[in-house]
């Protein structure tokens, strides 16, 4: 019995930590309807500024907090002014991508300045422990809880009773109306970003002290947990974010209690998916609200796609097909093989995210399903590799669609959050389902690619194989887009309300898009498995999903040729930037930001 008290207390303590990030996210979402993926990076920056203050300058705690808050707020203001404000009249997906780009840039800047080694960030509070149940809590626990609750309370008062707070709420409800009423929306955004960033920075500092450890990899985890907590509490709802965080902490803690430590995040993400499916507006939203106005043409950039003449495509395909006859190095071929594999994933994602508008952040899960299926089919059942890969594609299509189907009723950013969670769930199931997936040990000795008994071992034959598979998938997808299904998918993307009013079932067509797209992604994963000969749960990670999305945006949403072009560019560029070594991810982030700013419809335009 006492153990349950301990699990509860531990859950609340961790929830407390999550709340600090979640409140900042909720505030920003409340005003700009934006999930700020850079919040974790501000948290990282805050932690390191705090480290400089504490370890180098020996500031006392109150001064440290003020320094961190002010410096982080400045970072927030810079992000708002130069990263997001120029995108104000842009499509709604643009700021989301911009925050991802900003987080790359901030994380890399911190890493380059202070080196990626973890650092100790000693607590400046006396080390007194209070016995509660079987465990203890210290002054830092209380301080974190105090800061979390106080900031939520202050925000509540600020939003309710101050003039600027009133403006913030008005802007949150109806930006245009607020503008007409004379609200300076830019000032509101500045205020909100400043406050949220200050809060994010201070939370990084406190959490760093709490664990006596900060490192540059902490930003993504902070963002993930913060986003989960925020969405569970109801996006944009500040008190909801606090309660959502505590709930998340509790669910994780009880999950550990019942199933063990390695199931912890599984429960976090399951909670998110369940809440999104049952209460898409969060636990604390009123059940029935007016149906939201459509995002017609605002989530996806309207554009006239660049028309590439058929002969040019044929020439390009022909050139790539005969490339191995020229004296190119295997390194170039291998890089292009990677591009073709990423291209298949991008084809899949451009259909799902671009053509039917389900911006998925968990697409790597489809790769993983295809890879594991194909690897296991060939190893356990000695299936010929060619058939195993097709089996991987089919499994990805079926299982992927089934897993993602609960999110079919969601819209906009919620789809991205749900798919992100589903991606994490797939990876965690692979980690824990040891009897099938061999858990963390992974699957080794996967047979190499072969076709009709003829092993494809040389880079040239693998090059041709992957190129041909990708071209076939691209042609099929082109044919699909030219059919009534292409039309129907795009209609659902542009306005799902109007589409339903004309008899288009969202479930049916979203399923079909995921089935087709899942197959392409599964095939890509299957080929990768046989190419690498070894896979484990880390082979297909969140970074892959984000990379694929960047490819799709770069090429132009829904654009088949664009997806392939984007894949070649994003596999090729980092290789070209190899000379820049440590700086290349920084460059990548900046390129992404510039792209979102100056060509949000992608290189070849949305189709």
């Amino acid at each position, binding site marked *: 019995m006492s153990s349950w008290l301990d699990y509860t207390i531990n859950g609340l303590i961790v929830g407390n930590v999550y709340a600090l990030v979640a409140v900042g996210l909720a505030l920003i979402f409340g005003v700009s309807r934006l999930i700020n993926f850079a919040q974790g990076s501000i948290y990282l920056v805050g932690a390191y500024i705090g480290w400089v203050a504490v370890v180098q300058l020996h500031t006392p705690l109150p001064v440290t907090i003020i320094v961190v808050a002010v410096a982080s707020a400045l970072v927030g203001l810079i992000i708002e002014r130069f990263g997001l404000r120029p995108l104000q009249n842009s499509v709604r997906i643009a700021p989301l991508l911009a925050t991802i780009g900003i987080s790359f840039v901030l994380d890399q800047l911190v890493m380059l300045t202070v080196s990626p080694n973890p650092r100790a960030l000693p607590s400046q509070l006396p080390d007194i422990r209070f016995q509660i149940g079987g465990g203890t809590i210290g002054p830092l626990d209380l301080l974190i809880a105090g800061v979390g609750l106080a900031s939520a309370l202050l925000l509540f008062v600020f939003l309710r009773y101050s003039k600027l707070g009133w403006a913030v709420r008005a802007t949150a409800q109806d930006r245009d109306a607020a503008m007409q009423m004379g609200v300076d929306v830019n000032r509101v955004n500045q205020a909100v970003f400043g406050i949220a960033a200050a809060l994010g920075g201070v939370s990084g500092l406190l959490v760093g002290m709490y664990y006596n450890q900060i490192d540059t990899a902490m930003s993504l985890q902070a963002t993930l947990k913060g986003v989960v907590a925020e969405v569970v509490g109801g996006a944009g709802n500040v008190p909801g974010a606090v309660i959502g965080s505590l709930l998340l902490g509790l669910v994780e803690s009880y999950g550990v209690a019942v199933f063990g430590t390695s199931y912890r995040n599984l429960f976090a993400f399951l909670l998110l998916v369940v809440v999104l499916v049952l209460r898409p507006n969060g636990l604390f939203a009123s059940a029935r609200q007016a149906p939201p106005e459509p995002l017609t043409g605002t989530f996806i950039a309207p554009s006239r796609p660049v028309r590439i003449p058929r002969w040019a495509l044929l020439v390009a395909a022909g050139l790539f097909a005969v490339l191995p006859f020229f004296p190119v190095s295997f390194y170039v071929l291998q890089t292009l093989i990677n591009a073709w594999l990423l291209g298949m994933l991008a084809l899949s994602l451009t259909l799902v995210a671009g053509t039917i508008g389900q911006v998925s952040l968990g697409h790597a899960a489809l790769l993983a399903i295809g890879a594991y299926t194909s690897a296991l089919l060939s190893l356990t059942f000695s299936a010929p590799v060619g058939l195993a890969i097709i089996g991987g594609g089919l499994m990805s299509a079926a299982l992927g669609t089934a897993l993602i189907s609960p999110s079919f009723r969601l819209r906009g950013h919620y789809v991205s959050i749900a798919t992100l969670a589903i991606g994490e769930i797939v990876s965690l199931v692979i980690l824990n389902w040891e009897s099938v997936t061999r858990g963390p040990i992974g699957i080794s000795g996967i047979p190499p690619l072969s076709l009709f008994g003829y092993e494809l071992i040389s880079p040239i034959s693998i090059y041709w194989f992957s190129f041909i598979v990708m071209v076939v998938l691209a042609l099929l997808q082109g044919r699909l887009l030219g059919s*009534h299904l292409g039309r129907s998918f795009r209609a659902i993307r542009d306005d799902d309300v109007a589409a339903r009013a004309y008899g288009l079932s969202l479930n049916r067509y979203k399923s079909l898009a995921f089935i087709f797209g899942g197959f392409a992604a599964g095939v890509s994963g299957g080929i990768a498995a046989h190419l690498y000969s070894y896979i484990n749960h880390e082979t297909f990670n969140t970074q892959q999903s984000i990379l694929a999305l960047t490819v799709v945006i770069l090429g132009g949403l829904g654009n088949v040729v664009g997806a392939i072009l984007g894949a070649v560019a994003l596999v090729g560029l980092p290789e070209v930037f190899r000379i820049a070594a440590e700086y290349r991810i920084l460059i990548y982030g900046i390129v992404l930001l510039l792209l979102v700013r100056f060509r949000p419809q992608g290189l070849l335009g949305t189709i």
Partner: protein
Amino acid sequence: MAEQHTTMLSLRGLTRRFGGLTAVDAIDLDLARGELISIIGPNGAGKTTLFNLVTGLDRPDAGIVRFEGQDITGFSPERLAAAGIARTFQLGRVFGNLSVMDNVLIGAHTRLRAVKPAVPLIGPLLELGLALLRPASVKAEEERLREEVKVILARFGERLLPRIDQPAYSLSYANRRRVEIARALALKPRLLLLDEPTAGMNPTETAEMQGLVAELKAEGLTILLIEHKLEMVMRLSDRVIVMDEGKKIAEGPGEAVRKDPKVIEAYLGHGLTKEQESAA
């Protein structure tokens, strides 16, 4: 029994609340086959919410919707579209990135047969297969519908036909409204709900639109119309229903309704806009 045959749409006690606000308050309405009823009322009177309830985009808290004698309360919009109910939207919801042709073809979606075999369970997969393989029957159906679309677009003279391959986002506001109506017509509706079809149109365009609606009515189409331009309402409507704050405050032939003191009160009380004043 006779009433059953002539009544196409009937609403009884239809109610929808948002928090403390009752947007649609116990509305009764009977629409006979071939009839055109206009719903007027100040902004926020609940007209569009009423449309949403009839077309399944929103569910009522109380009341019943009957279509051709069948209780369709709470049916999904997809199902209602298949039953022959088509609507346009107040804010002009065209599919921005789709061409004019594709927008109108979406209207014909419920009439696709060859490519959507009515096979249970694997129907969707067959649809995917047929879309990729495109046998002759599928091609023929698509061609036939494309021809039909051109005929529908020809109703708008030279407004849309020259722009048939342009994306809808590039069209003028008035042309987007026309595309919406063309899309609704492609469904071959039994009941057409028009939500302010002339909003934002100049007098010439309004006159054209009025002519078109009159034409549709003459062809026997049953129409429910939300409109602010009273002159048009008076010309076209068999009956007029006035809503205010969710309630039906008057119903009857246009002229009678117009003189109803409650109606005048509702309009004056909410402040008459210049446009409505001059139109009235």
